[in-house]
């Protein structure tokens, strides 16, 4: 299967074969991280712009390292220190950046659809690095790569995604990707944090942590996105933690001994994950971060390396 898309916007758009191609490409690129000289010339002369309107540590750094290891020139733009603060609109800023002929623009924005808006307006490749509560495809891809490396396959696996599903682009992208690859997904959280349409995406729903984690291969814990919560969706952090926090005790009682614990970060220790679980033997949280670089290298390479793909 070849890669023909100009942009990577959502997991929903992708076919299973495209997801597997992205994961395979990333898997083959992982070896670069172990080299003494972590640089290959594949994207020499290509320019990647990170256009971040929301704070980010992992994703922005990861795209930056990925671009640099592939020899692309990487420019970081963050809205707080730019002409955005002088009143320039999102599309105007993006068009100005596009006028400098980048090959790939990686965009994160608090509004759903921001990446797609740019993809329609700009001639260069756009990567969605998170648009509001909509999608975050590279996170889902790195989660999938981590799962395959640890479990060996996708088909038939059962994943529980636990916590603030309503505000989570990670959950949405993962549900789309996992369903396409023949995995079962159960989402779990307090009813106020489960969006009403989630069954339509093919996910099962559970309202008790103990039930949700019982018979799954992977538990993906999510952070409470308090910055996106406008009304009182949970009574208190303490109560949330008591019912929905994953502790060693709960794991030992209810989960399988070979379960993987994942978290897209940043972790709020003591809220959704106890420190013993976050740092424990089941946890692959830092593996996810390492694989994030490989996934972003794969995405940049496939977008910039597609036939006739010189950004024009």
């Amino acid at each position, binding site marked *: 299967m*070849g890669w*023909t898309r100009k942009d990577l916007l959502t997991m929903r758009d992708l076919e299973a074969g495209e997801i597997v191609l992205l994961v395979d490409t990333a898997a*083959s*690129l992982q070896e670069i991280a172990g*080299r003494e*000289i972590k640089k290959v010339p594949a994207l020499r002369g290509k320019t990647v712009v990170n256009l971040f309107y929301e704070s980010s540590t992992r994703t922005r750094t990861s795209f930056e390292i990925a671009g640099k290891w592939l020899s692309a020139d990487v420019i970081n733009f963050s809205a707080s220190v730019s002409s955005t603060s002088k009143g320039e609109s999102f599309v105007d800023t993006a068009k100005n950046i596009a006028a400098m002929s980048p090959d790939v623009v990686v965009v994160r924005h608090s509004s759903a659809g921001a990446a797609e808006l740019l993809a329609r307006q700009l001639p260069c490749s756009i990567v969605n690095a998170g648009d509001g509560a909509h999608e975050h495809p590279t996170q889902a891809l790195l989660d999938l790569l981590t799962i395959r490396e640890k479990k060996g396959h996708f088909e038939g696996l059962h994943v529980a995604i636990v916590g603030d599903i309503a505000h989570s682009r990670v959950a949405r992208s993962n549900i789309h990707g996992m369903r396409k690859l023949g995995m079962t997904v159960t989402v779990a959280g307090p009813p106020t944090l489960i969006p009403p349409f989630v069954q339509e995406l093919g996910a099962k729903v559970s309202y008790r942590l103990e039930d949700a984690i019982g018979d799954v291969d992977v538990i993906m814990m999510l952070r409470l996105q308090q910055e996106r919560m406008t009304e009182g969706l949970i009574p208190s952090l303490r109560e949330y933690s008591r019912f929905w926090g994953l502790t060693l005790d709960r794991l030992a009682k209810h989960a399988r001994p070979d379960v993987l614990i994942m978290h897209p970060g940043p972790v709020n220790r003591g809220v959704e994950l106890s420190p013993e679980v976050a740092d424990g033997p089941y946890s692959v949280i830092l593996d996810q971060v390492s694989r994030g670089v490989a996934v972003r290298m794969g995405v940049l*390479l496939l977008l910039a*390396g597609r036939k006739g*793909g010189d950004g024009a």
Partner: protein
Amino acid sequence: MGSPAPRHREKAQVLDEIALDRALTRIAHEILERNGGAKDLAFVGLRTRGVSLAHRLSEKIAQIDGTTLPVGALDITLYRDDLGMRGTPVIRGTDIPFSIKAKTVILVDDVLFTGRTIRAALDAIIDLGRPTAIQLACLIDRGHRELPIRPDYIGKNLPTSRRESVAVRLREHDGEDRVVIEEPEEA
């Protein structure tokens, strides 16, 4: 590397199973002769068929000399000079589980053609460390070089026209050991 042309039909057989094996045996002897034994040698095969050939050469040297030389696999996709001209880049991964520092690396490929693949492979190897020397072994040298690159060990010199292609078929991938010249179906 054979270029991804449309459909090809077989024009002539160049090597059969026995001739292919003999060529590899001779190359193994030449490698030992030229380097005064097997000390500090290592094989790096180019994906995909160069890797199989490298393993076979390593086995031959083990039979002759009793030394088991390490074999690595090199994928040069990230070093190509034509990214974006050939469609989706397929990365099959580099796997060289030993240090190439202070080693004489024998680079192994199936068909030597323009030399561009080897140019990329030299860059890729040097990025992994500083070998003492790099030598090049190719099963078929079909000419038409576009770069100043010359093999050290050749299985067979095979003058070809540019419109033909050379297919190296190996047991490990194709179920048979054979080298054939192919030409475009529609002529």
